[in-house]
């Protein structure tokens, strides 16, 4: 075997090993991301349960004792951002992403219910927006714009809580929420302070959906969920 032939074969083997290592490294990093999301989600589930338990224990005067809700929502927002990144990396149909997304959606619904309860009992006054989007290709031309506008509103008005849901996610609790809020399959769909609306035209129009004075530009209550 000539020197060139020998080197050509060795080079092929080395290239396959190098490319294989690259594939392994990329997959390993993605798996670490999924593991990271799982870990945050587990912690979040425990925290949510803790707040709910506190609420149940202190049925009569829970407000001054429930201090974890704000931290919980901030963590939920971080988890949402990570999940969006993981979804872009691994694809919306990846089974692990779907599993995590379902858990995240459940946590969002629980946080939403908790927020409503706190608002009622403790007279907290944070505006809430439910945002329903669709990942089905061609079904929502304006969802990216709507998501970006909601991100802007959240950053500008920190008292705003935004919960975003993938309409087509196969999850019983989400289907119940959709049925309760009577959301049609038109996207993007919003429920702002209990009022439904469909479609996104501009940031100004969306902003006007909120009651006058509800959005506060500076506050210490940074407890919102980031949009999709």
């Amino acid at each position, binding site marked *: 075997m000539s*020197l*060139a032939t020998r080197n050509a074969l060795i*080079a092929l083997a080395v*290239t396959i090993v190098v490319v294989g290592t690259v594939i392994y490294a*990329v997959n390993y990093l993605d798996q670490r991301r999924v593991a990271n999301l799982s870990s945050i989600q587990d912690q979040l589930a425990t925290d949510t349960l803790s707040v709910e338990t506190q609420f149940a224990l202190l049925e009569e005067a829970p407000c001054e004792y429930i201090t974890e809700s704000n931290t919980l929502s901030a963590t939920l927002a971080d988890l949402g951002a990570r999940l969006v*990144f993981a979804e872009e990396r691994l694809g919306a149909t990846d089974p692990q992403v779907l599993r995590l997304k379902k858990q995240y959606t459940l946590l969002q619904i629980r946080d939403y219910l908790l927020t409503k309860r706190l608002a009622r009992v403790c007279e907290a006054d944070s505006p809430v927006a439910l945002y329903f989007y669709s990942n089905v290709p061609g079904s929502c031309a304006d969802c990216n714009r709507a998501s970006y506008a909601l991100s*802007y509103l959240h*950053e500008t008005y920190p008292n705003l809580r935004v919960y975003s849901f993938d309409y087509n996610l196969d999850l019983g609790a989400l289907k119940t929420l959709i049925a309760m809020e009577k959301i049609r399959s038109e996207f993007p769909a919003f429920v702002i302070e209990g009022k439904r609306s469909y479609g996104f035209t501009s940031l100004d129009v969306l902003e006007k959906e909120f009651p006058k004075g509800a959005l506060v530009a500076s506050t210490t209550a940074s407890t919102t969920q980031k949009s999709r």
Partner: protein
Amino acid sequence: MQIEYIAYPFLFIAIYFEIFLLLTFLGSHGRTSRARALATHTPKVAIIVPCWNEETTVAGTVHSLLALDYPADRLQIILVDDGSTDGTGAAMAQFDTEPRVLVLRKENGGKHTAINAGIELAGDADIIGCLDADSFVDRTALREMIAYFDDAKVAAVTPAMSVNNPRTALERMQNAEYIFGIGWRHALALVNGIFVTPGPFSLYRRSVVDELGGFRYAHQAEDMEMALRMQRHGWHIENAPRARVYTKVPRNVFRLIKQRTRWTTGFLRNVLLDYRDLVGNPKHKVLGLMVLPFGFLAVSGGIMLFCVAVFMTAKQLVTTVATVNGVPLSYVLTPHFSLGWFYVPITFLVLLGLVASVFSITFMVLGKRISGTPGNLWLDMLAYCLLYGLVAPWWLLRAVMDVAFGTRRSWR
């Protein structure tokens, strides 16, 4: 299918070829070749300097040749003025009294006619050298190269080229590329895969040049044509990595694109039209099975990668503009990115590109090391990393268009 998938086969082949050349470079044959001592014997050498409008550089070129470490009676320098219209003739005239220098003035006929005219004046020289009139040789370059002619199968020897005194970012970018070429060309020579004997100081065995019929018109790439003709006839082309030659390079991007378009069309036309029989021919081993086919892949891959990058950037830009429309600019222009390992954008494409770049940088470091080329390579590499990908696709695109539509351009 995602559009980035198109890039994967090109990157795989690029990495494969780089690993192949690296293995060749690091092997025992490479070490033996690099350990070769300076020549002690001194065959008669005639160095031809073909000139066309080189009034500013030709004197420096000749002075560097006169300073070569070589017996005066064994070295002849032949300056051929190929119908220059500037002060080249006057610049040459200052060497009229130098006994080692012959000056020939002729009507303009192209580089190959100038070299052939010089060969006719070379008398009984055993070795013919060609040096572009914008290049300068290191004192020991000739002795370094002569040593390789000990092997009777060797018809030509190429040097280690770098940029003469690089200063601007564009010159530094080209210097990094030239230094990369030193390591690359040396590895190619080890498997007889060289397909061009560059104008800045290549040496030829006189008997082989005569046997092959001298230089001929070859789509403005006469040095490439001669190398391919030698390869077709079974000769070997060597490389002397310590034979340093410094050359002037284009100082603005338009001249650079013009020069490289000429080189690339020269490659495409010579190989496609006149030397197609070499491509894929097992008789020509690495040259036929790897170097020439991969040369075509490099041209098409470079264009393809550029198009993919432009498409992806444009798509992202359109999406971003549509998404942020209506949101205040103060928010849009504020960077919104998250730190931490979770968000590091490592993808298959990015990592493969990184691997290919690491091998390229390795060749640059090796090229500088084996040639002993002076200068700050890190600055050159920085310029290369920042600029090369933005500039190179334009000459590749232009060259392919020229070949496809039969466009012929002037030399300068």
